[in-house]
């Protein structure tokens, strides 16, 4: 598993969108169309708790971060922008 350090904005975007594409079975190009307001948990029926858990666990692996219980809330998972901001904060806080 590749752990990506020093991800800048564009690389983080690519990694996160790739991950969402993997979970939802989208073309990578399709996932690149996600914007900050694109809805995730609660908006995409495929994204149930099991899929979200897989997404977060894979984020830990690929980004080299640890996600605690308290980090996970509805807000952080609601939109692509919120998930990205969360990942950025985790990466910055190491």
């Amino acid at each position: 598993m590749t752990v990506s350090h020093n991800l800048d904005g564009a690389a983080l975007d690519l990694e996160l969108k790739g991950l969402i594409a993997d979970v939802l079975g989208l073309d990578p190009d399709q996932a690149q169309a996600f914007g900050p307001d694109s809805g995730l948990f609660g908006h995409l029926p495929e994204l149930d708790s099991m899929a979200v858990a897989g997404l977060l666990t894979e984020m830990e692996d690929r980004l080299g971060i640890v996600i605690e219980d308290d980090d996970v809330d509805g807000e952080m998972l609601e939109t692509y922008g919120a998930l990205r901001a969360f990942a950025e904060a985790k990466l910055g806080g190491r």
Partner: protein
Amino acid sequence: MFTWTPPATDGTPAREELLVAFDRGRDLRLLVCPAWFDEANKLRRFTIEVMRRLDRAGVDCLLPDLPGCNESLAPLTDQTLEGWRAAMTAAAEALRATHVLAIRAGALIAPPALPGWHYAALSGPKLLRGMIRARTIAAREAGITETTDALMAEGRAAGLTLGGWAIGPALFAALETAEPVLAPGQSDLAQSAIGGPGLWLRAEPDEDASQADRLAARIVQSLAGAPA
């Protein structure tokens, strides 16, 4: 319909378990240790597709049910890591397997006497982490607060139902430290060596013919003596 019989524990009559087999009595006989729980569902079709390709390449493929899973009538909550290891070893002997392909958490119970491959092996702690996280997220959605620490303690003491799978306390505790170990003659086949996203990640079960092609091709090459 094919069956095999796992070892009887504590004198109870052994029950037959089912398996999916492409069995034409050939020299190369591959035991497939399936992925577990939710991943088993997501990877079932992919697993069978890999077996079909290996069958066409001249390899018999044998995919037993784990006791307590799939069509098995045994209660899942009674299963243990050691019991599953013994069951896979018994299946290998009963089915005269020559090699093993262990998928994801299946790598935790691959019979060490067989050469073969661990595909995208998953450790016990990672398996539990993902399943517990799914439960805490679902609980939060329902307005209930559950913490990972409390659930881990409950799992150790009394077992825990995660994603609909009732995991007994012995299996739960064993998974907390279980790591896949490559026995002599076994090698890792990482997802990066196959290419494309792991199908266990998909929110919905899916298939990918090109990934099945590549995994089967790696195994055929390796059986023919090429480096894995």
